């Protein structure tokens, strides 16, 4: 019996010109882990909202077809009833955690079900142990970090032992380590609870290796529903923006794409391209096209032994000394709480160092994590000058007349960038961006990377996304506990790692410093021809 069954589901949001879902049909068996792929606006989130009953009960609109969840028809059962069988985790943990302490938050879904107090206490304790958050149980939720909040929200989704778990980009706010841990944890919990899991995600390379099935959506329709390897083969041919870097690497060599690093390495090994005796096994041989770090004499931005300490003694930055040359493109990486955002805020003078000094050659523009915070006018044209809008690719006159909040996520990001760059009297010498790729699909990330490469100013980006770093950065600084622990070219910093590494680098074991599929292909192609 299927846990989720959609039959000809078509749905339009109130006032929408086009349906968000169109004739969607699918079946999900217990214990299955399904990855939902697709660009922004393809219908992934709406499909999840159909499965938890928010569509149509919460959002309204026009609904046709039938959605059955654990035997409940969502037309007859609202989200409150469906919640007995379904656990949902949305993207932003801030708005999902509603109680004062972690224990109360985990208890709420069980209390809503009218469970007796001992069952509530046991359920909260067990899910906390399963998620490794038992030490947080009595902490106030207002004091938790983004990663901790995400785990607590996941705990609240799982505490009722749901038959179906729905997750909407759960790793978008997590660093690579926490993201990988979360996906592995989901796999294990799904097996333990025999629950079906539907995971909507943009960073497919992170989760396809764990999945049983991948479903691709485009313009509200299911366009592919297949096991991960077949899905990747389809993506390489039909939807390159959904193909993972590993799949692009293998496909470029004429091999069948494989999901996950392990499978990709097996494929390469089977073709004699990876192993102890092959030419790239050493990892350091034939360093390929290293992107040189530009070290200019003058600094566009300089941190001189900068410390940032909080009232209660916690140190966020520990004597950070570094400088950015004019026009240099630098990525700052590190775990959640490593001090990346604080570093950027110091650069833009939003914070004052406890000790040390920050100097710059001119204005520093800062784009914070939420671009919507910058939008205060009624029309796009009122937010920034035509020149600034054209610089970020928003020159279309029709677009300029739209309301800023009606723009897509990527457009809002670019508009906010135009706002911070828009000063005719003093052009920015440094542009800082804090997690600019959160929730962005691969195509939009590529567009943003290209845009950053075109800017004349130095660029400093705090990000968790190694693929994005490989696409735009000339230099990578890895922060650990408030101080730089690595500083070098992307191939030096990202090629040899496990978590802070691109999928290509992980597959090739850091060989040749190759970070992107194209670089991997250049490295492997000669040997493949010899081998072939």
């Amino acid at each position, binding site marked *: 019996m299927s846990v989720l069954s959609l039959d000809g589901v078509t749905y339009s949001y109130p006032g929408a010109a086009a349906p968000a879902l169109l004739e969607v049909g699918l079946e999900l068996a217990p214990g299955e882990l399904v990855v939902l792929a697709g660009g922004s606006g393809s219908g992934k989130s709406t499909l999840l909202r159909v499965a938890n009953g928010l569509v149509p009960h919460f959002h309204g609109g026009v609904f046709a077809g039938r959605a059955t969840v654990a035997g409940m028809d969502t037309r007859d059962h609202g989200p409150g009833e469906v919640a007995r069988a379904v656990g949902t985790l949305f993207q932003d943990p801030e708005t999902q955690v509603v109680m004062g302490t972690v224990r109360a938050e985990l208890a709420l879904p069980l209390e809503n079900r009218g469970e007796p107090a001992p069952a509530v206490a046991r359920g909260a304790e067990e899910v906390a142990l399963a998620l490794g958050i038992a030490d947080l149980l009595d902490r*106030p939720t207002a004091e938790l970090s983004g990663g901790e909040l995400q785990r607590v929200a996941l705990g609240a989704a799982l505490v009722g032992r749901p038959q179906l778990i729905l997750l909407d980009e759960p790793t978008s706010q997590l660093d690579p380590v926490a993201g990988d841990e979360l996906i592995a944890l989901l796999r294990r919990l799904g097996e333990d609870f025999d629950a079906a899991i539907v995971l909507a995600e943009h960073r497919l390379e992170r989760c396809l290796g764990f999945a049983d099935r991948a479903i691709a959506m485009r313009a509200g329709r299911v366009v592919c529903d297949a096991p991960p390897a077949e899905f990747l083969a389809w993506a390489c041919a039909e939807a390159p923006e959904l193909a993972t870097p590993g799949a692009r690497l293998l496909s470029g060599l004429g091999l069948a794409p494989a999901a996950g690093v392990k499978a990709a390495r097996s494929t390469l090994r089977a073709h004699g391209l990876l192993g102890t005796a092959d030419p790239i096994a050493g990892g350091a041989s034939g360093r390929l096209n290293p992107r040189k770090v530009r070290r200019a004499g003058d600094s566009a931005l300089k941190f001189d032994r900068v410390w940032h300490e909080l009232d209660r003694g916690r140190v966020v930055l520990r004597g950070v000394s570094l400088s950015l040359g004019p026009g240099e493109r630098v990525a700052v990486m590190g775990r959640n709480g490593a001090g990346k955002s604080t570093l950027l805020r110091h650069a833009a003078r939003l914070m004052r160092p406890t000790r040390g000094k920050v100097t710059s050659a001119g204005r520093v523009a800062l784009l914070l994590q939420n671009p919507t915070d910058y939008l205060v006018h009624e029309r796009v044209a009122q937010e920034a000058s035509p020149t600034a809008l054209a610089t970020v690719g928003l020159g279309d006159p029709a677009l300029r007349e739209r309301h800023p909040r009606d723009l897509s996520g990527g457009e809002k990001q670019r508009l906010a960038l135009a706002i911070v760059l*828009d000063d005719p009297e003093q052009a920015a010498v440094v542009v800082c961006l804090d997690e600019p790729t959160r929730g962005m699909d691969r195509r939009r990330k590529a567009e943003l990377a290209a845009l950053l490469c075109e800017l004349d100013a130095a660029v400093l980006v705090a990000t968790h996304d190694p693929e994005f770093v490989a696409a735009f950065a000339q230099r990578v600084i890895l922060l650990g506990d408030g101080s730089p622990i690595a500083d070098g070219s992307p191939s030096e910093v990202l090629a040899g790692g496990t978590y802070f590494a691109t999928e290509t680098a992980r597959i090739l074991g850091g060989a040749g410093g190759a970070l992107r599929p194209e670089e991997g292909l250049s490295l492997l192609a000669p040997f493949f021809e010899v081998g072939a």
Partner: protein
Amino acid sequence: MIYRRRPSPLHAARAGVGCTYCLALALAALVLSGPVALGAVVVGIAGAAVGSGVGRELCRALRFALPLGLLVMAVNALVVRDGLTVIARLGDLPVLGQTDITLEATVAGAVLGLRAVALILCAALYTAAIDPDDVLRLFRRFSFHSALSATLATRMVPLLARDARRLGDAQRCRPGRPPSRVQLMRAASSGVLDRALDVAAALEVRGYGAARRAPRGAAANTPWSRHDLTFAASALAIVALGVGARVAGLARFGSDPALHVPMGVGSVAVATGLVAFALAPFADRRGIER
């Protein structure tokens, strides 16, 4: 200001008793009108806050309460015509007309302001020292949805404060002329509505819409601790003293036509009793970790 569990007798008491204790202090502030007695209520609340380790939170509330108290005093002095002792003649003012400031109206305004300060501090003590999740559990038996809405409102305050800080930071990053207050208000309102929708959706998928009452279990019969008993006794004593003093006419303040500020033995005794009753439960710190 948020609730954070601390090692104190008030935090150790059950939420129902903590609520009753705060309500008793608030009731005392409402039924007593003498400045000495009201001052004693404020001292009692401040002492309770220090004893609970939330003194800093109370100081923060005081920063808001004091200007409000002064405003109440000023408005009362300007609009109330009672009293015989004129201390300033402001002449014919627009809207207010002929305005004389009297000592009686000013002192009466100060007493009202003091009462407002006492009530705000009481609310601050409640917010900082009483677990809102326990309060929710307490009231859900009567009205689950209303209790959850009230708790959510408390929870949304720090969340919206964080949103406001974020919005402020983003506006500081804008080059050129800053946007007007109206534009900022509009942007903030849109953000608040988005937040509210997200929270509502999150609550729906946690089963809020189909919430049902839990059966009364063992937890409902948890035995009362000594902190529960002492704070309950303290609350009872404060209410009895406050109501008793009111009925007996002790500590009653008057300002029309002349000032009557109770400063006699009865008034001082009421004030001393209030402070003693309010602080007595904090004397027992056995078992409270330091």
